[in-house]
């Protein structure tokens, strides 16, 4: 039987990483994700893994780059300002097709901002905050259970597609405690057979992993190859939760922590006789554009709610293609959405 344990969101990410066979963690402290770094510091030595508190976020992501090259499952974590610093490394990992997990427990921004939970990094996460024509898979947990589950999934997807994967969380889900179900399984900690890792070329042809491609049209060809991979990911990996959308006249679209307030607003609105549903994107990239597009044809309007000035709304509008009106309600700077405020907005729209 599955055990039910009470655990903090940040710790659940750490537990998910360990259950997924992560053997190398590199980080640099920042609130509100510090419990995760502390968790890894405690557990990694016990399982024969590597924990390094790097001298900076930039060093940490480049250590992930190096560890990934040897074939081990590896992870780094930070919060918004620290994730900005990692962007160069993420671009290089995408270019070299290196699997690795990057956790962002978002806080209020821009700049140093504050330490409250926020959703201000959607653009950075889904547009590839680093340079170049690349994509990063982005998973958005909305509960402590999903902090665990989606961390496990992120390691699988990283290996499956040889790609960096981001877990985009926030300070509220990171700090809160909830019961989760988890299996204690025998974790495979052996390096899986990968035909691209750099582990010494004795007895085989040397390999090279690089992102500098200077030959004529060499880089274009490589970018098209990457694009084929991104297409495959779009075809196979889109995930979203649909809640009460069948007969809905208005549909809320929200991810992560905002979706919790959204779901509560749906329940309350239904009690008051309003036909409201919700779409919760779990993969932010690839975005569930077909799901949103199809539902957009059936509803009167859509309300996007975010703990930001409005970022995901751009993906929603691209998916809706003008088929219905798209409204927005959000609060930036680490302020939490109130269910009552969402209900007010719903009443305003439905009138």
């Amino acid at each position: 039987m599955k055990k039910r344990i009470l655990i903090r969101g940040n710790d659940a990410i750490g537990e998910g990483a360990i259950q997924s066979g992560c053997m190398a963690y590199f980080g640099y402290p920042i609130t509100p994700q510090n419990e995760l770094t502390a968790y890894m510091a405690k557990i990694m030595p016990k399982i024969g893994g590597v924990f390094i508190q790097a001298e900076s976020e930039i060093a940490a992501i480049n250590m992930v780059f190096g560890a990934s090259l040897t074939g081990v499952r590896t992870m780094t974590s930070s919060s918004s300002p620290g994730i900005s610093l990692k962007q160069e490394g993420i671009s290089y990992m995408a270019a070299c097709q290196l699997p690795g997990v990057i956790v962002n427990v978002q806080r209020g921004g821009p700049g140093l901002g504050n330490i409250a939970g926020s959703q201000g990094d959607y653009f950075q996460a889904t547009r590839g905050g680093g340079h170049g024509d690349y994509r990063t898979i982005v998973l958005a947990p909305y509960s402590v259970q999903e902090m665990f589950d989606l961390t496990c999934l992120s390691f699988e997807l990283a290996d499956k597609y040889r790609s960096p994967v981001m877990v985009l969380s926030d300070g509220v889900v990171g700090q809160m405690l909830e019961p989760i179900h988890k299996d204690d399984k025998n974790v495979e900690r052996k390096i899986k057979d990968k035909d691209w890792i750099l582990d010494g070329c004795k007895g085989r042809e040397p390999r090279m992993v690089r992102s500098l491609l200077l030959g004529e049209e060499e880089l274009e060809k490589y970018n098209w190859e990457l694009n084929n991979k991104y297409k495959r990911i779009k075809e196979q990996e889109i995930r979203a939760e649909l809640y009460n959308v069948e007969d809905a006249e208005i549909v809320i679209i929200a991810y992560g922590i905002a979706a919790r307030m959204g779901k509560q607003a749906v329940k309350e609105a239904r009690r008051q006789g309003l036909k409201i549903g919700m779409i919760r994107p779990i993969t932010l990239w690839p975005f569930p554009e077909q799901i949103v597009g199809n539902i957009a044809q059936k509803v009167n309007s859509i309300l996007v709610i975010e703990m930001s000035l409005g970022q995901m709304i751009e993906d929603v509008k691209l998916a809706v293609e003008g088929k219905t009106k798209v409204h927005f309600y959000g609060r930036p700077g680490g302020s939490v959405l109130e269910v009552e405020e969402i209900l007010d907005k719903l009443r305003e729209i439905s009138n």
Partner: protein
Amino acid sequence: MFEELIIAGYGGQGIMFCGTLLAHLAMEEGLNVTFFPSYGAEMRGGTANCRVVISREEIGSPMVKNPSSLIIFNKPSLIKFSGQLKEKGLLIINSSLVEEEIVKEGIEVIRVPVTQIAQKLGNDKVANMVALGVYIRQKGIVSLESAIKGLESILLLKDKEEKKNLIEINREALKSGFNY
């Protein structure tokens, strides 16, 4: 059942442990529960509060705006939170440190000198368990026996030996609150 609780006091009064233990007890009863700490540039002596939501249904927001219950350990917390309490709400006050009489209509006020009771037991740090004892008696979310069992299991999980030695006094504190 749907319960939204705020526990508030000074840093060092065991606010977070009180909330965490309650969350653990609710989980053991098969209920859904969330615990959210107020964290910030806070320190011993600063303000500390946490929010616990307990429900049979899936829980939406873990943030509590209008609590159905409040456990207040000091005066600044009373000033900050008492106005937010719902009608017919439960207000448990540490009367050792808060002298004010509450004149708000339509709420249930229980004044318990939890700090003094804890001092009599030998350590004022267990005032949190006295208050939790009062709370679980009022709300009936768990039995005293289950609460004691949960407390022991949590303290036994701690790595440090000295935490294990604290089981006895914490258990007595819970009982004193429950039987107050």
